[in-house]
């Protein structure tokens, strides 16, 4: 740090010439994104040691800066290589549940279908509520040395708020209401996590993965154009959360391969405790029945709906294992709990 050259005018100016390199990031095709400013000594690749303050990566350390309590000191603890891109994508793709859903296309549905849709919305508004709290819980531990991961989590908090509100809106917009609270949805496992990677693999990869597989069947589940749009828009957001989780897991396994067994342990617990359902558990009886009714097209077509429900489970499980394989945890296939393994396609 430069000496303190108090000037004639009484200025200190010790902050003025602390660095000599000049940085001029140029906007790219998508404007000036985090990618364009990830350069030189400011890049994530130039990350130095953290210091338990909120000093942004590349800023000059302040002598005498107070600590703020523990946060993650190792990049691998929170990092995903795609978080810069995912952050910018999130800012570009924010949507409004108030105005981007064609609420005026809602039409009265047969009572059993409306009730089934409202039950599903009740469960989803509950699940999405927790999905905002969970990243919130971890934000204070994400060092500003890895601020892009933190920024991404803040977009996720916003996304989950929107999902919480859009499913509540759906339940209250078409002559229905909220129905039965979920129970045993496996949501406690998310908030119980005591490590960022544990949280991420359980929430981003497993729970949001299951929810994403369901949203992608929204064309079959949704009864109106508004319902289908809700699932499509929400799926778009979930894809980002899922992509962060997969790439975080990959980063951990690539850089700290000794954590493999530890991560299996978290999954053993989550898959076992939820008896194969995991968070976003669609086997909770009211949700299971609601889905069978929606997928079948009515109570009288419940068995037809059940067959589609089993297809949904098959899709959820196979996509889950595929994502783990992409992240480098392909050996999970051999350890999958029986309630999941029954749906697994041959490798």
């Amino acid at each position, binding site marked *: 740090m430069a000496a303190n050259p108090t000037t004639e*005018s009484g200025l*200190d100016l010790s*902050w*003025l010439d*602390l*660095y000599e390199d000049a940085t*001029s990031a140029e906007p790219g095709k998508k*404007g*000036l994104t985090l990618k364009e*400013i990830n350069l030189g000594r*400011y890049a994530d690749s130039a990350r130095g040691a953290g210091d338990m303050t*909120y*000093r*942004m990566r590349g*800023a*000059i350390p*302040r002598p005498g800066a*107070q600590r*703020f309590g523990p946060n993650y000191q190792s990049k691998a603890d929170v990092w995903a290589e795609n978080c810069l891109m995912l952050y910018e994508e999130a800012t*570009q793709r924010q949507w*409004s549940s*108030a105005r981007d859903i064609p*609420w005026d296309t809602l039409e009265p549905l047969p009572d059993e279908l409306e*009730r089934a849709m409202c*039950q599903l919305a009740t469960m989803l508004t509950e699940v999405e*509520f*927790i999905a905002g*709290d969970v990243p*919130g*819980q971890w934000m*204070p531990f*994400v060092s*500003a040395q890895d*601020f892009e991961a*933190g*920024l991404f989590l*803040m977009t996720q*908090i916003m996304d989950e*708020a929107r999902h*919480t*509100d859009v499913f509540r*809106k759906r*339940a*209250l*917009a078409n*002559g229905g*209401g909220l*129905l039965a*609270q979920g*129970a045993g949805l496996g949501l406690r496992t998310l908030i119980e996590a005591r490590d960022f990677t544990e949280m991420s693999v359980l929430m981003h990869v497993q729970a949001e993965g299951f929810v994403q597989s369901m949203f992608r069947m929204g064309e079959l589940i949704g009864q109106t154009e508004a319902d289908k749009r809700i699932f499509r828009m929400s799926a778009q957001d979930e894809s980002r959360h899922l992509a962060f989780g997969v790439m975080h897991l990959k980063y951990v396994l690539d850089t700290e391969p000794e954590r493999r067994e530890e991560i299996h342990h978290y999954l053993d617990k989550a898959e076992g405790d939820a*008896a*194969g359902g995991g968070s976003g558990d669609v*086997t909770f009886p*009211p949700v299971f029945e609601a889905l069978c009714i929606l997928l079948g097209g009515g109570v009288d077509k419940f068995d037809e709906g*059940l067959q589609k429900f*089993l297809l949904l*489970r098959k899709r959820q499980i196979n996509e889950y294992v595929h994502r783990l394989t992409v992240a480098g945890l392909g050996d999970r296939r051999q350890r999958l709990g*029986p*309630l999941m393994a*029954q749906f697994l396609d041959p490798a």
Partner: protein
Amino acid sequence: MSTGEALARAAQATQVEIPQEARDKARELGWEDGLIELALSKGHSLQVIWQALRAGVDGERAKEFLQGGQAAIPRDLSWMNVPTEWGIRARPKDPAMGLTIADLMIGTYGDVPDVWTNRSEIARGSYPNPIVEDMGYTIFEKALVWADCCVPLYEEAIRDRWVSATDLNWNSLEPLPHDLERAVCQFMTEQSERAYFTGALWSGWLPEISYGFLELKLFLSTIIYDLARHSEAFRKRALANGGGLGLQAPTDFSRVAKEARSFPELAAILFVQDSMLYTLFSQGDRFAQNELERDLYRFVARDRKRMLDYHIERMKHMLFKLPDRRDEQNLYFNKAESRMGKDWVDPAVSEPLAILLGGGVANIDEGRRQLRELRQLQVDNYLADLRKATFERKHINGRLEQAARA
């Protein structure tokens, strides 16, 4: 061959591992040993058996079914008739805003209770399950957190969203004199860190707030998202015009916010910051060096205004509901003002602003005069904001008073 052996063979043939959870549940429901294996041998999938167990099918009924009778999974459907308010058809009151969360505040769904008693993540207005785990929330009292304005502000925040990458004209930047560019960069470094820190701080409080105050949590989520954008936008500006990041921000004010032991304390401390920053950014035209910075400060000020509106109304509401806590607030304001005063006199905070206000180091006397004016305006507006919240702060902390005059 005994029946047991036959069943064991049948189970083997299916090559399905039966989870312990399923066996435990079956025992709890009075299923005879071997019944799950029998169901599997008859071609029923483990998933269907699991659904029957989760639906509470008892041993007798399961046996009857396997002997060829009833449906495996009873159509319970009791959730269809739980006693929640039914027949709700929310409609947009303002078509330009669309279907807002304010439009959902109808019937019992609009009741925000003074005290929320459910410890689970139940959606307010849904039918409670009697046996659920405690999710660990700690804030159940409306008076501590609530402000009616959070309902419209949530939707306004979404409507007013902006994107730093594309809503700011980065191509308009032109080289500035060295002292001005460095002053801009130092200011950006400080503000980027403050925004990131405050976003992380608010985030950490989200899991403390129970579902009774859902709309507040939704609004806080927009604050967190705004702060993420501020942090990256300030960083981008620092790195876009021949400068760089300077000295990290002073830590005194941020530490006092981090030290808050309760939500009201946190909110009181951030009231001070958010009021001061709103005034600062709303005066951004005075120290902006170009069009991009003017736009950036305008966007930030608009976001900060929502935060400030929340603080004012929350404080007013709390003081109305909990008048015995009025004097206590002075303790938090005093701490916050003191630390802010300390930050304000830090050369890396005051000098960049004075240089920008004056138009360069050469005009530092004019810059200092303008900074004193700006600081006084921040203090005056802060006291006015407190008055809007029905709080009369008779004496601000001496350190802040001195810092404003420095």
